[in-house]
């Protein structure tokens, strides 16, 4: 009979088709892979499954109707992938700030004074000249020069056009700080106290990024200093900045509390504040383990996150939100870029946050509903056979050189599944929240990149810096020369080395920052989950009693992750390698292949 193994994952749907005869080894005919449609475990995945089955059947040279049996995962425990949302508190400020980092600010130093139009520089009070785009740089420089000659202390300038150096070069000594390229200059109020700082070339500002420096300049008390502190943090690391004090009632405050989680497990119930961080949440999870459910605090950021998850799942399955419970929770610390309220140049501030991946289970057997629906739609009997991790280990065992005992880590996009088969063929397994999608989340949030395709690219591909018109510097420092001059759009930028050509990375982060963030994200998801899984599965909870670990799943194709995990697990004396399913598919198709090996029940 012809059997199809169908593995519907969070990201990809994989199929293996084989001729299976009792008493004989399966004869594999074809395989296929396609993108998963809808939420894993629900009927919304059927369109993708159908495409994969048709593709595989075509490659096997048969009609889909020739398939006698489809086996799908007994994926009942995992209804849906991942609920992830960085949870943070809204940042407040009662000052207007321009943490602008123009390419070429003018002059240098620190100036504090009241803001005034460059055409209205009078009196004996220190002034900051505001130059809008309609004033040519020669005129602006002349106004400032004349005012200074008349004894008006002009101590800095804020300029709309890219004229900072030109103005600075034409006003004579002493030099004053000039911040330019401030596009929203019409929102700069006149008559307010402001501070302008420009650092010398190659250095960073010193005073405006220091809350106590600001307190000194603006004569602030402790309460006011704490309110202006986020502004100072937003300006850290810049070469130039402006802070304008505005009356406090001009800025609205809004706070969303991160909230708390109540963890309910076999060993009791514990509440943990999200602000305590990932390590504290993980510690409490261990105390109540195994986890039965998580109750989020209503009206908070974490409450909203779980509410969205339940609503999405209800829509996909038709079940009530209360019928789901969280079977595993994976927390990870990260920095997220939050817009600063009251800024003029879209400044952002890096806030500490906690990302959560939640694995959701339901009491009802969704897999049976899915199996029935597929069967009705395709007119082929469907058997829900074998847990995902079990199928994964059977598939992994087709890798040349593997044997019992063995541990398999399935590095998926939504979850990390692990299974261990002992020398008697007994299988133990764990399903853990957190996978490739969580890596994307951490990477994107830390780098301030929202686009999902870019997050995936930055996880999967290397980056480089375009050093000159004719050369790029790779991540490892190797300089490669190019056959043609690069496009000027890419010059001086960090680029993604995409197979179809180089692409400028949004925001132009430094290569080192991308590499460090990428590796940290991978380590904090897959590294942590590998540790968790192996501690759960190893005899006596000690991974040192394991010998061999085989990596399967889409993320095992990653260019650096297998080596990172191998290095990490080598501390336990564990030999780690990437599977080569059936000697030809690498880490792909393991679960679909393993499903074929399930005992045939006719």
């Amino acid at each position, binding site marked *: 009979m012809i059997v199809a193994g169908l593995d519907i994952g969070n990201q990809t749907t994989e199929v293996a088709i084989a001729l299976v005869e009792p008493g004989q080894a399966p004869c594999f005919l074809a395989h296929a892979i396609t993108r998963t449609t809808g939420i894993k475990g629900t009927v919304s995945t059927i369109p993708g499954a159908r495409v994969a089955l048709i593709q595989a059947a075509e490659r096997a040279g048969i009609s889909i109707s020739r398939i006698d049996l489809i086996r799908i995962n007994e994926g009942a425990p995992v209804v849906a992938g991942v609920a992830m949302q960085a949870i943070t508190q809204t940042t407040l400020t009662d000052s207007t700030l321009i943490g602008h980092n123009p*390419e*070429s600010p003018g002059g240098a130093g620190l100036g504090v004074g009241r803001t005034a139009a460059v055409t209205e520089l009078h009196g004996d009070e220190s002034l900051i000249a505001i130059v809008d785009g309609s004033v040519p*740089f020669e005129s602006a420089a002349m106004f400032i020069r004349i005012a200074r000659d008349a004894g008006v202390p002009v101590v800095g300038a804020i300029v709309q056009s*890219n*004229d*900072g*150096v*030109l103005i600075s*070069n034409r006003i004579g000594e002493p030099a004053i700080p000039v911040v330019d390229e401030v596009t929203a200059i019409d929102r700069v109020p006149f008559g307010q106290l402001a501070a302008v700082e420009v650092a010398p*070339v190659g250095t960073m500002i010193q005073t405006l990024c220091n809350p106590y420096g600001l307190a000194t300049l603006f004569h602030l008390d402790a309460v006011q200093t704490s309110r202006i502190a986020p502004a100072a943090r937003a300006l850290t690391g810049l070469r130039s900045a402006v802070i304008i004090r505005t009356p406090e009632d001009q800025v609205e405050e809004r706070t969303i509390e991160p909230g708390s989680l109540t963890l309910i497990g076999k060993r009791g119930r514990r509440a943990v504040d999200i602000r305590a961080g990932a390590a504290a949440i993980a510690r409490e999870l261990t105390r109540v383990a195994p986890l039965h459910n998580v109750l989020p605090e209503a009206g908070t950021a974490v409450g909203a996150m779980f509410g969205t998850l339940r609503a999405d799942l209800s829509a996909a399955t038709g079940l009530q939100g209360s019928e789901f419970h969280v079977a595993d929770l994976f927390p990870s610390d990260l920095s997220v870029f939050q817009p600063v309220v009251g800024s003029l140049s879209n400044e952002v501030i890096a806030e500490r946050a906690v990302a959560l991946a939640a694995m959701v289970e339901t009491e009802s057997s969704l897999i049976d509903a899915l199996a029935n629906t597929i069967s009705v739609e395709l007119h082929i009997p469907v058997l829900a056979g074998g847990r995902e991790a079990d199928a994964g280990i059977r598939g992994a065992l087709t890798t040349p050189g593997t044997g019992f005992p063995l541990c398999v880590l399935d590095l998926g996009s939504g979850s990390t599944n692990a299974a261990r088969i002992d020398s008697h063929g007994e299988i133990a397994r764990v399903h853990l929240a957190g996978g490739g999608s969580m890596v994307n989340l951490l990477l994107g949030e830390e780098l301030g990149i929202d686009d999902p395709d870019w997050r995936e690219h930055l996880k999967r591909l290397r980056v480089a810096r375009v*050093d*000159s*018109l*004719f050369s790029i510097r790779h991540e490892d420092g190797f300089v490669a020369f190019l056959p043609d*001059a690069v496009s*000027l*759009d*890419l*010059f*001086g*930028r960090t680029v993604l080395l995409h197979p179809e050509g180089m692409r*400028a990375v949004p925001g*132009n982060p430094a290569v080192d920052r991308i590499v460090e963030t990428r590796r940290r994200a991978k380590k904090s998801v897959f590294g942590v989950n590998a540790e968790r899984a192996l501690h759960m599965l190893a005899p006596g909870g000690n991974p040192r009693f394991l010998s061999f670990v085989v990596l399967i799943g889409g993320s095992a194709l990653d260019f650096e992750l297998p080596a990172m995990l191998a290095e990490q697990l080598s501390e336990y004396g564990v030999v780690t390698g990437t599977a080569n399913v059936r000697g030809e598919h690498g880490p792909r198709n393991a679960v679909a292949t393993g499903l074929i090996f399930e005992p045939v029940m006719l």
Partner: protein
Amino acid sequence: MNDRPGITILYSAGASNGLVLALGLGCEEEGVPAVFGVRDGDASSLARRASELSISFLGIGIDSLGSIALHDQRLGGLRPLLAKADASVDHARAIGVAAGRIVRGRPVGVIRLEALWTVTE
């Protein structure tokens, strides 16, 4: 003229003073010195000649028809990096800024006028 570091700008005798000045201002805003000279020729050939004279490898040419070209010495006889026919003062300033940023190794893509540029094929 080739003993000072910076961007060499060659213009034909009939070139617009305003364009030449704007190019120089663009370079100045980026903190990169510009060295000027007068030669005969069209913008592309002037730019190529200027790049050969330039210690930074970058040269700009402006001709009497109002065209501007930016060339890197290492391109040799290939097309210039940038060229703009019938350039305005704003174009000239932006090309000066772009040249300054290339010398400084900074991205040039952020210049708002880039959509107006035409690169000759």
